[in-house]
C-alpha cells in the first residue's frame, strides 16, 4: 500500500503559476499529484523526489482529444490527471522532468496563444456560470428545507447566501484571469 496524503484546496486555480509552483514543490519533496477528485480534493502519492515542471491546460473533450493528448505525449508531457470544471470541460495537468535545474518547459510558447487560452476560460466561466448558479439554487433550497429542517424563509436565505457566494467566486475567477491577460499584454509592443 503506497502512502498517500490528501489536501483540500477549494481556492486553487490553474490560472497563473501559483498552483504549478505548489505542485512542483510537492514533487520535489516526493509527493506526486495522483488525482483531483470533485473540484478541489488533491491526492498525492509518496515517491522519489523529482524536479518536475507541472503545467495545466484547459481543454474541452471532443473527438479530437486523442490527438490532443498524443501531441502532448510526443512533446514530452505525461498526463497526470484532469480536474473537472463542467460537462466536458477539464483542466488537464501534465508533467515533465526537467533535464537541467531551472529549465522551464512551457506548453504555451507565445503570449498570443496564452492570452487566447485565458480568453477561452473567461468565455467558459461566463457561459457555465449562470447555469451553475441556477443548479446551486435548485439544490440548496430543498436540501436546506428537508435535511436541515429549516423554515422556507430560512431556506431561502441559505440559498441566497449560497448563490451569492457562488457568484462572488465566479467574479473573482473572471477578474483574476483578466488581470493575467492584462499582465501578458502589458509588455507587448
Amino acid at each position, binding site marked *: 500500500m503506497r502512502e498517500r496524503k490528501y489536501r483540500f484546496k477549494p481556492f486553487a486555480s490553474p490560472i497563473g503559476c501559483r498552483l504549478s509552483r505548489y505542485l512542483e514543490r510537492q514533487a520535489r519533496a516526493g509527493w506526486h499529484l495522483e488525482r483531483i477528485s470533485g473540484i478541489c480534493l488533491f491526492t498525492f502519492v509518496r515517491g522519489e523526489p523529482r524536479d518536475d515542471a507541472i503545467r495545466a*491546460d484547459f481543454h474541452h473533450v471532443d473527438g479530437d482529444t486523442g*490527438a490532443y493528448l498524443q*501531441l502532448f505525449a510526443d512533446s514530452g508531457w505525461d498526463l497526470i490527471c484532469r480536474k473537472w470544471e463542467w460537462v466536458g470541460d477539464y483542466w488537464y495537468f501534465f508533467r515533465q522532468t526537467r533535464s537541467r535545474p531551472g529549465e522551464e518547459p512551457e*506548453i504555451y510558447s*507565445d503570449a498570443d*496563444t496564452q492570452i487566447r487560452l485565458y480568453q477561452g476560460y473567461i468565455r467558459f466561466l461566463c457561459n457555465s456560470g449562470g447555469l451553475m448558479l441556477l443548479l446551486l439554487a435548485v439544490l440548496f433550497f430543498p436540501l436546506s428545507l428537508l435535511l436541515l429542517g429549516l423554515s422556507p424563509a430560512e431556506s431561502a436565505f441559505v440559498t441566497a447566501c449560497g448563490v451569492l457566494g457562488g457568484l462572488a467566486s465566479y467574479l473573482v475567477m473572471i477578474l483574476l484571469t483578466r488581470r493575467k491577460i492584462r499582465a501578458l499584454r502589458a509588455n507587448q509592443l
Partner: protein
Amino acid sequence: MDSSELIRTYVPMSETAYYILLSLLSPRHGYAIMQHVEELTRGRIHLGAGTLYGTLGKMEKGALIEITAEEDKRKIYQITEAGRTVLTAEIARITELYLNGKAHGDQAKGGGEIA
C-alpha cells in the same frame, strides 16, 4: 473568401503561425512541425504543445491547412491554396521588413546620427 480578404484577415501573423505554415508546405504531424521549427530557427523557437494545438485548430477552421491523413492518433496536416496565398503575402511583408531593417541596421546599432 477571396485572396484579398484572406490577406486582410491573416496578415500580419505571429511568428508561431508563420513558421507553422512554412512547415506545412510539406505534410507533417504536430510533433514533426515542432522539430522542423526548432531546426529552422536553430533552437530559438521551441513551440509549446498548447500553442501548437490551438494554432493548428484555428488554421484548420480558417481552411489555411487541412488534414491529409491520420496515423495512429497523429493527424497529418498540409497547407491549402488559401494558406499558400496568405503565406506568400506574409513572406512579401517580411521581405519588406528585412530590406528596410538592413538599410537602417548600422544606424540602429549606434552612432546616434540625426537624419
